[in-house]
């Protein structure tokens, strides 16, 4: 099976104002797929649709090769899920919660659970309602990883956690990935974190998937150019011109945001009598922001 998750023209209306439209995403098996998007773009709704927690209005979903929602229990048996707001039973202790969870998964590995308990510094006798936010986050990750899943679906797993806890959680996740050939689908608006670990990225905005490609392509794809003496009318560019603005102060000129840039395209500027002063690489966050800007502009 080449894609761990695959949707085709997925559609779902949520209330009056919001809908997921024509969502066709593909998560290659064994990849770490970062699902980016601003708040309210429909990331959590998409995750819920993928796991059968919501019924789709139209389109098809296949997870680990099986159709959703008809085969949900079998898929969930092999999927570790960390939801946006963890909903564990507050009255149970950490140890009781682990025993409860373990009872439902035949692939539960007690050894890994013990290792992670020690590694995360979780106290088995402490009640869940008394755990700090960081400890709850760690426990959620522990429960998912100890299941030994083939697929991990993580919805903002590090949101609201302090940097120390974030590192611990991500390290444990990556540790697992290096031991097992698992696929990770991680949704987040913390772009910097995803930048290091994801090899694929999908971008959501206002209910639609606006981009999906390997991480490296995405990072390299969008650049900022500092241009001097640019002509007022521009046409037939070898790259895609996403935006054009006056430069910031010091040396005048303009800033162009372009997509699909390649080095030989420098020639273009000589041809129109302009000067290309600098090619600036954008990191993932800047690239993400620019991409969204262009999609929100009318007529983009």
């Amino acid at each position: 099976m080449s894609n761990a998750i695959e949707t085709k023209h997925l559609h779902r209306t949520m209330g009056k104002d919001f809908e997921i439209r024509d969502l066709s995403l593909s998560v290659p098996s064994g990849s770490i797929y970062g699902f980016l998007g601003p708040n309210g773009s429909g990331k959590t709704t998409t995750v819920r649709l993928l796991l059968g927690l919501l019924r789709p209005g139209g389109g098809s979903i296949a997870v680990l090769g099986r159709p959703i929602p008809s085969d949900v229990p079998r898929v969930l048996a092999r999927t570790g899920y960390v939801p946006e707001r963890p909903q564990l039973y507050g009255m149970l202790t950490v140890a009781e919660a682990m025993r409860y969870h373990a009872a439902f998964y035949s692939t539960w590995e007690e050894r890994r659970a013990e290792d992670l308990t020690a590694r995360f510094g979780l106290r088995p006798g402490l009640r869940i309602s008394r755990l700090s936010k960081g400890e709850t986050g760690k426990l959620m990750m522990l429960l998912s990883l100890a299941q030994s899943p083939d697929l991990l679906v993580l919805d903002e797993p590090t949101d609201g956690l302090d940097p120390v806890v974030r590192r611990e959680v991500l390290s444990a996740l990556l540790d697992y990935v290096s031991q097992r050939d698992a696929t990770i689908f991680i949704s987040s608006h913390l772009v910097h974190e995803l930048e290091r670990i994801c090899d694929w990225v999908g971008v959501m905005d206002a209910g639609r998937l606006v981009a999906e490609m390997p991480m490296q392509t995405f990072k390299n794809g969008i650049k900022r150019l500092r241009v001097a003496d640019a002509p007022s009318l521009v046409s037939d560019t070898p790259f895609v011109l996403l935006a054009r603005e006056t430069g910031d102060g010091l040396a005048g000129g303009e800033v162009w945001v372009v997509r699909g840039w390649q080095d030989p395209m420098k020639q273009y500027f000589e041809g129109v009598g302009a000067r290309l002063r600098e090619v600036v690489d954008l990191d993932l966050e800047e690239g993400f922001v620019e991409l969204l800007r262009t999609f929100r502009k009318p007529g983009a």
Partner: protein
Amino acid sequence: MFDLIDPRSPTPLYDQIADRVRMAIASGDLRPGEPLPSVRRLAANLRVNPATVVQAYRTLEAEGFVEMRQGSGTFVKDVGAARRDEERGDQARNLVREMLAEAARRGLRAREVLAALRDETGAEA
């Protein structure tokens, strides 16, 4: 050794990792026969995708710097002094290229940079 991995740089992460290893070999910090950190360990420490580390190690293997032994790990090969010097030369050149590019951005000329270099190092160019 791996502290300065920058996910924001346009250089792919695997390349940055491989580069660090090359530098360490060229400078003698990593000796022939020494093991590199395991994929698992390095990925978790750097918080990068394990596949990235594997790619870095494979690149190094293709270049002849290391040897990946099934089940035991990845080990530094003895590339010989000549090759190490060649690598050092490459590293120096890369550094100079970066410096000149930055100088150009600031509007400085190569001549001025060279003069500054002479002053700083007190060496005959």
